[in-house]
């Protein structure tokens, strides 16, 4: 009897093992065949799924990664962060409120209809129509009228001179959609644009598939099929990259950096980026308007020590307008209050800042928690009492918007790469209660931000932005923790990836090596 049991156990174990073994040896040969046979399918691992595939109806980076390959904007920022025409041919400003934009001719949408001035008017009118409830309707807020002059000329009049207008037009949410397709189908599910890739399919939660647009004006992309695969766990995405199931990942977190850099089949790339992370006090509370309080906070924080923890994925600069953003001047790099813990201690003691416990609000994602822990320890060293309050993203946004905190960390991705588009939403009193979570209301700063927005003279704009930046640094309005470094890891059988400072990338020129 005993022997029978043992025999049965052995047989079942052997069967299970052989089943696994049999399946697996085949899998390895399939995989190796796949690599050599179809280098056309190129897979990108996305941590989140697209919300939708219409540029008008979305405002998240996962959706934008797809839509930017299907649709195109009138202008775009190049890798050097300069604005250049894309669907536009040229533009002129007969006066400060008028933008006459000439469009490129002979471009067709993927549904075969013509790209022309009507399409531009249709897209922008839909984007700004309150009935659409577009998340980025604000891109068109300064626009007064849009007129079709002829088939390939549009005249846009703004309500006031609007300096960052070209930056707004280069935003992925201002991409031009096919009016015919938009009236016929839901572009959020079946997108139709003029871009280098055409939509094939979308399985929500799983993957979006695009194919090369054979009629693209610069020639069809070399990648025949691109898959945006949802892989929510970053370590799984790296394993897939290592195993050759995925060819490209971006936004490599600092703690996984050494693993990715150690992969033999992968080229790791990093460039200075536009996103930034900063610490702010709650400016709506009277006790935090005391200049010495903000000085004490800024003096207590050793930003160099924090940036070192990021393994090279952070840039140290005091400047609130980052090195890759329009309006930045090098002189601002060291214009902030330097780290001086003794000075901080002195101010804390003198003003009795150690009597009250400060609530440091932080979101529970990315580097936020690390920042909170480091800053809590550094502030404690200077004598402050700090309690961390961690929240998930949705609750965090609501709490920060409502100003229910003492200190908090905020971030901004600076997709348009323009300083006005950073300062206006985050620090202008117009936006307190919504995007201005710092709760700052400073008439002097408001005026400089307004000036930077309401002139189309780019030199003057740069000057206003610099003045605003210097004012904020002088007043310790925010303490920049770091400016981001944008990363990408590409299977080394491929080359030609274009990576932009705002974290976006373009696959249209990627080819096999």
């Amino acid at each position, binding site marked *: 009897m005993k022997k029978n049991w043992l025999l049965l156990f052995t047989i079942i174990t052997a069967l299970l093992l052989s089943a696994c073994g049999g399946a697996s040896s085949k899998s390895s040969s399939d995989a190796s065949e796949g690599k050599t046979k179809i280098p056309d399918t190129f897979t990108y691992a996305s941590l989140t799924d697209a919300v939708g595939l219409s540029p008008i109806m979305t*405002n998240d980076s996962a959706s934008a990664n797809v839509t930017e390959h299907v649709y195109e904007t009138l202008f775009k920022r190049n890798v050097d962060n300069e604005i250049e025409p894309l669907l536009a041919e040229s533009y002129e400003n007969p006066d400060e409120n008028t933008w006459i934009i000439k469009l490129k001719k002979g471009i067709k949408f993927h549904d075969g209809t013509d790209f022309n001035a009507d399409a531009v008017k249709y897209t922008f009118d839909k984007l700004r129509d309150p009935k659409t409830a577009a998340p980025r309707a*604000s891109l068109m*807020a300064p626009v007064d009228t849009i007129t079709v002059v002829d088939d390939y000329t549009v005249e846009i009049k703004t309500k006031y001179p609007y300096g960052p207008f070209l930056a707004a037009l280069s935003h992925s949410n201002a991409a031009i959609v096919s009016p015919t397709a938009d009236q016929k189908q839901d572009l959020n599910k079946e997108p139709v644009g003029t871009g280098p890739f055409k939509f094939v399919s979308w399985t*929500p*939660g799983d993957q979006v598939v695009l194919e090369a647009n054979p009629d693209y004006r610069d020639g069809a992309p070399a990648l025949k099929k691109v898959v945006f695969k949802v892989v*929510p*766990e970053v370590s799984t995405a790296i*394993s897939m990259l290592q195993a050759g199931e995925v060819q490209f990942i971006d936004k490599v977190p600092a703690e996984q950096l050494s693993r990715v850099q150690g992969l033999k089949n992968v080229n790791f790339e990093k460039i200075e980026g536009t996103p930034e992370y900063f610490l702010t006090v709650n400016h709506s509370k009277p006790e935090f308007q005391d200049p010495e309080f903000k000085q004490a906070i800024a003096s207590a924080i050793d930003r160099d020590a924090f940036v070192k923890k990021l393994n090279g994925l952070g840039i140290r600069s005091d400047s609130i307008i980052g090195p890759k953003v329009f309006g930045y001047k090098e002189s601002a790099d060291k214009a902030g209050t330097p780290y001086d813990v003794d000075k901080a201690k002195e101010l804390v003691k003198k003003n009795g800042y150690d009597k009250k416990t400060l609530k440091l609000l932080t979101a529970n994602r990315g580097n936020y928690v690390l920042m909170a822990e480091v800053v809590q320890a550094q502030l404690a060293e200077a004598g402050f009492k700090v309690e961390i309050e961690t929240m998930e993203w*949705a609750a965090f946004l609501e709490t920060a918007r409502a100003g229910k905190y003492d200190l908090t960390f905020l971030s*901004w991705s600076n997709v348009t790469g323009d300083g006005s588009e950073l300062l206006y939403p985050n620090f202008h009193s117009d936006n307190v209660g919504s995007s201005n979570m710092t709760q700052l209301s400073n008439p002097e700063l408001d005026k400089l931000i307004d000036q930077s927005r309401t002139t189309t003279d780019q030199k003057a704009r740069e000057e206003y932005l610099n003045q605003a930046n210097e004012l904020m640094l002088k007043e310790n309005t925010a303490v920049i923790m770091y400016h981001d470094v944008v990363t990408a890891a590409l299977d080394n059988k491929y080359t030609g990836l274009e990576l932009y400072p705002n974290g976006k990338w373009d696959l249209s020129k990627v080819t096999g090596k």
Partner: protein
Amino acid sequence: MVAMIVRRLFQLLFLLFGISFLVFSSMYLAPGDPASMIGGPTATESDLNAIRDNLGLNDSFLTQYGHYLASVVQGDLGFSYQTRQPVSEAIAVRFPNTLKLAIASMVIAIIIGIFAGLISALKHNSWLDVSSTTFALAGISIPNFWLGALLILVFSVNLQWLPVAGLSDPWFTVEGLKQMVLPAITLGTGSAAMIARMVRSSMLEVVRADYVRTARAKGVKERNVIWIHTLKNAMIPVITVIGLNFGALLGGTIITEKVFAINGVGRLMIDAIAARDFPMVQGSVLLVATLFVLVNLVVDIVYTYVDPRIKFQ
């Protein structure tokens, strides 16, 4: 029996009504604004208001809940705030993945669990028993995210036997089966361990029962004593554990789905909660609750087959 089933299904309606109210009110009261999750940090107040108007979020709680209930009664689970996709469509895409993963894990769990439990009980206090109980303890203690990551590293990255992630190919294809192996083992281990422990303790109890001694005394073959007289009677608590585990697996397994990039109900639910996508949360919770009740109903019916003494009034 039929009356019992009808009664239980009737109770299910009340239960679902209660759950929908609880979920709706907790999502309504929880901090976080669906509009700001759609608009993102860049949205201005006027953008947010337009979104809120569009979704009917400016209405009172009762109006919102009333609208929701009215459409659910008509079989319409509503639209996702985020993707504007019908909730039922989103669930229909994910549920097959959750179902096949749950079935595969349960098959693994039942085979390993019953086998290990039986050996453990029959070879009580032997080295086989010790190793089996050690396995059970380890199976319950090892967290899924760790086991999943470990299996990926060993079998997918180093040995390259199995794919790292995904579950999109049909289960009856070689590729589909291969995709299922690692997540099913990851999920099945915990359930296997629970089943093994239950089989062991239940068997040890039944093996000492008088009727088993009588059966042996009558000269019934040992094999029949084990399989017919003992195991079948020891199965009642085991079936309960299997039912509960299967119900939980059908509710989606967030961590395993995340580690293996599986497009299942668990991930749908957690993403919807994070995005404050109320209709999607409601829809998936109602689905999970219904499945849980149905699985338990099936378990109750199975009881009557395993033990004919059990009768439903």
